[in-house]
């Protein structure tokens, strides 16, 4: 056994460990998000119906205040040129506009009102024990695939 192989093994393990911690970070953030979605009851089909009937402020309050907090955070990140914990420069990708922004948005809205859930809530609802919500979730994956398949022939 040469020295290099002896040295390699512990390095590999620590690499795997740090990778594991990277993933743990996203798992914890996801748990935090899914927990909050559930506690705010924004994953409720009833809440979505109420929102599209403009009869309650709840959903608008949640989405609106989330966006305002995000705005303030992004302002501070830019103002102080904050970096990520890994020292990376934070660069935000701009959202591109194309015909699909409005057509796709409208299609998404139709589905949102019917299923009463957008992608985040679909995962949270499955976690809440609504196994039936795997059906719209799998269907959403198929919808994504069909978009990819048809992409070249759709107006953008």
């Amino acid at each position: 056994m040469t020295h290099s192989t002896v040295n390699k093994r512990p390095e590999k393990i620590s690499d795997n460990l740090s990778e594991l911690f990277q993933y743990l970070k996203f798992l914890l953030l996801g748990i935090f998000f899914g927990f909050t979605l559930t506690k705010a009851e924004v994953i409720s089909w009833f809440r979505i119906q109420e929102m599209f009937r403009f009869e309650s402020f709840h959903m608008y309050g949640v989405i609106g205040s989330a966006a305002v907090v995000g705005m303030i955070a992004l302002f501070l990140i830019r103002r102080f040129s904050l970096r990520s914990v890994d020292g990376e420069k934070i660069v935000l990708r701009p959202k591109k506009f194309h015909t699909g922004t409005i057509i796709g948005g409208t299609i998404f809205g139709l589905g949102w009102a019917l299923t009463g859930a957008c992608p985040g809530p679909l995962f949270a609802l499955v976690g809440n024990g609504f196994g039936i919500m795997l059906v719209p979730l799998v269907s959403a994956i198929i919808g994504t695939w069909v978009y990819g398949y048809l992409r070249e022939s759709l107006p953008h």
Partner: protein
Amino acid sequence: MRTLLYEPWPWYIAGPLIGLMIPLLLLLANKQFGVSSSLRHVCAACAPMKIPFFQYNWQSERWNLIFVVGILLGGMLASFFMPLTEAVPITEETTAQLKTLGIEEFSGLMPTNLFSWNNLFTAQGFVLMVVGGFLVGFGARYAGGCTSGHAIMGLSNLQWPSLVAVIGFFIGGLTATYFILPWLF
């Protein structure tokens, strides 16, 4: 504290907490908040089938898949430790209007008679779950994002295409609410 954890959270608690996802993801990992991309990564991982849209290194986007597993676990934890004890407090107007559509079940997060395995094989259940889900996935990718990516991340980054997308979300949502749902019931 205990009651706050057990009671449903008002918008002014939940909204800012959700908004914090944006700086947390950026500062802890330099990632942009969004959920629907995960659906694309699942396609790229499971059935790329030489479609250019799914030919990319999805492994480098694995974080997004772990994030949505977390969302699922978060829902599980909330329902396990603090189960809902009362109906979702929607307004009386909405309740009355949903009753005129024939919805009688208001006790949990979802009308379980509509979203059930039995109802899946009726035209109504098929449209609500299969067609609805399909439109969510297709539309989100076509629009370049869903509620989290456009309505929260995009709007907070002052992206006007996101505002257009959100207007689209409402055109579709209102159409479904006022024209498709009454026809379905």
